[in-house]
């Protein structure tokens, strides 16, 4: 097979066999959920409920009147116990609604029969997607209806579905494609209609051959205009710009967006959510989460309600294995955020929870750079990470900027390959913060 890919990048051990062949399981309804009012990039929502209110599953509980935002809905039926700032899995605290379950469960219809495409218009799609609170579910959490509203002067010719899932351990998108391929494809057709694109491409990495086959079959049945593009397995293939390079061989210029080259990229999970929203008016209140890692008793692919605590999700997988230090990560090990508090909730963009322990935990000591060129060869954006890291540490922000520090996509390839164990991305992140502070007018 002639597989497409981008330049550079790395081949981590994927460890996906822990969950790749496991069927998706539906977790029991949690007793309480903590629903952050901002689970997206953009303006935070205002609460629409008060302490003590009774809410129903799927009821909107937070919204705000601006364009770049996404409303949140109650994932369970019950009573509002608290509205306060709670820890958030991407860092810091966010105003959240705590709901206690009354054990009532609403039945959402489940079928994959498809949609009558003639009945919907681009505007009705955008409205439905916004109302359902759908955001990019691969990790970026950008409100999807914004992505589906390209400016008039930008012609979109291709929609790409991102089925790469290049993070080690994670298999939530993979199992979604295996078990609900129709949902994904109908969602994709809807997206194509919304942005008026003629062509659809789906990028799937070749380590998910079964998914490629299934999707190809379904494509033949319902939408032959979609092309399935098998890609070489490589990290970070799932990064938007890398994916566009790999599938279409188009370079997104620095500081520009995919829509500047006529492309809209969406994650397969997002597409499935769009289908549910249009077909059943079902808001985004649950998602598939891969709970995996060598620190877990029984790794699984779970359907979890938004707001379920990490603790409960882990307990649903038999808990953590005994002893030693652990790292619990929101997302996968390459780009995920390590947690200090297991009460943090699953949010719309939580594609996985990874628990690492023992020897998988990386050493904290680092050594001098031996100029092995490993990081330079790994960087998908062609930066010189070893130098950027040093410039950031020395606060030489002007040089940091000149050497392209702001183009870093924080994929972590450089730190991954470094034999001296230098935390390069960490330094580069700090460098970006320093640069922004310096650029702010009026700050000393």
């Amino acid at each position: 097979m002639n597989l497409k890919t981008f330049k550079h990048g790395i081949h981590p051990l994927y460890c996906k066999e822990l969950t790749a062949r496991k069927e998706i399981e539906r977790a029991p309804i949690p007793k309480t959920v903590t629903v952050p009012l901002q689970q997206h990039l953009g303006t935070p929502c205002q609460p629409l409920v008060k302490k003590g209110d009774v809410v129903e599953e799927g009821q909107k509980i937070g919204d705000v009147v601006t364009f770049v935002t996404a409303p949140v809905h109650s994932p369970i039926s019950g009573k509002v116990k608290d509205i306060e700032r709670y820890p958030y899995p991407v860092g810091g605290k966010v105003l959240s609604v705590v709901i206690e379950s009354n054990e009532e469960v609403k039945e959402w219809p489940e079928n994959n029969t498809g949609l009558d495409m003639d009945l919907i218009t681009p505007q009705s799609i955008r409205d439905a997607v916004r109302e359902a609170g759908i955001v990019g579910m691969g990790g970026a959490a950008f409100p999807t209806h914004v992505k589906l509203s390209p400016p008039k002067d930008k012609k979109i010719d291709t929609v790409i579905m991102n089925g790469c899932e290049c993070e080690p351990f994670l298999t939530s998108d993979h199992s979604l494609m295996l078990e609900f391929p129709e949902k994904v494809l109908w969602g994709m057709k809807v997206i194509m209609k919304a942005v008026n694109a003629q062509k659809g491409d789906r990028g799937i990495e070749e380590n998910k051959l079964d998914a490629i086959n299934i999707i190809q079959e379904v494509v033949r049945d319902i939408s032959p205009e979609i092309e399935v593009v098998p890609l070489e397995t490589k990290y970070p293939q799932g990064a938007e710009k890398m994916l566009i390079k790999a599938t279409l061989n188009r370079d997104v210029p620095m500081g520009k967006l995919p829509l500047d080259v006529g492309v809209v990229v969406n994650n397969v999970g997002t597409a499935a959510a769009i289908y549910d929203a249009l077909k059943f008016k079902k808001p985004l209140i649950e998602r598939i989460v891969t709970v995996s890692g060598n620190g877990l008793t029984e790794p699984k692919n779970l359907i979890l309600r938004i707001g379920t605590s990490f603790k409960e999700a882990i307990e649903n997988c038999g808990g953590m294995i005994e002893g030693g230090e652990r790292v619990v990560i929101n997302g996968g090990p390459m780009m995920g955020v390590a947690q200090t508090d297991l009460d943090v909730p699953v949010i719309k963009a939580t594609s996985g929870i990874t628990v690492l322990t023992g020897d998988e935990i990386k050493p904290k000591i680092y050594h001098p750079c031996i100029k092995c060129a490993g990081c330079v060869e790994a960087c998908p954006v062609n930066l010189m990470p070893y130098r950027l890291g040093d410039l950031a540490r020395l606060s030489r922000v002007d040089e940091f900027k000149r050497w392209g520090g702001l183009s870093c996509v924080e994929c972590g390839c450089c730190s991954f390959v470094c034999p001296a164990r230098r935390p390069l991305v960490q330094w580069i992140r700090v460098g970006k913060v320093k640069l922004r502070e310096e650029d702010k007018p009026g700050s000393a």
Partner: protein
Amino acid sequence: MDKSREGKVKGRRQTGECMKEKEKVPVSANKTDESIVERFVVSSSPHLLKDINIPKIMHTVVIALAPAMVVSIYFFGISALILILTCIISSIATEAFFQRLRKRPITVYDGSAIITGILLALTLPPSFPVLGAVLGSVFAIAIGKQFFGGLGYNIFNPALLGRAFLQATYPVLITTWSKSLAGSGIDVVAAATPLALMKFDGEMTPYLDMFFGNISGSLGETSVLAIIVGGLYLRYKGYINWRLPLGYLGAIFFFGAIFWLFNPSKYPAPLFHLLAGGAMLGAWFMVTDMVTSPVTPLGQWIFVIGAGILVVIIRLFGGLPEGVMYSILLMNSIVPLLDKWTRPRIFGEVR
């Protein structure tokens, strides 16, 4: 990314080896500046790292040098063994001494001092005095490495710097080679190297002898075969890039060929250039030294092609028969600049 590596990744994935125990890193702390980062950073992804570290790389290089060492002991006998051991021990001792002096963690077990010792020994003639070998090792580590700040900060290849120092201190002894007489029962006898024979007497040595190492020369420079075996092993392990050895040898070959085509009776054939002297050792183990070679693809090309051209110029027109050492040292000096000038085009950047 090449297919061979891809295959390996797949193989390991299928066997589910990801939970395999990682090797412990036998290196003590250098420094951690948590204080700087903690203020801003809430996370420190990636949480998973490749199974690689400095000692692992260095020890692989030592293994890759083993064939050349074995062959040198086979051809030159016990004197070769003594020289190699002397250089290794004095390199390690010097490194430890300076790290203690500078109150740095002692990292002599990371293998880099061993490599310097071996490489220095391999560039010495078998009859070289042991005291001289000690002096060369001390200089290589003290001035070549620790003076610049230790591993990673040195500009010049320490072993070559040590060898250059010995060339200045023992100009006669370092060019007194002996012919290997393995199995003949006689001890080594003095003889000129193929390069010296070519340069001063216009005499050529059979290629096959040069390939297997049955010639006179420095310990590790005689057997082209042993060096290539080690070099290919390093490439297989993924620790060196094709660009460096092949670019270097290619440049020597083509530049040598120009002169040869111009006047075949006066200048040696390009193949001779490749097989003679330290060209192979330099190509596989010296221009590939990570610390002292450029990190960018373009920089690496300039580095090795420049060095290759210098070898031919020094060999043909300089006062010395051999040019590998100076060619690499000279190019080492501009590596920091090369890294600066040859920054790759950033993805999506319009220049």
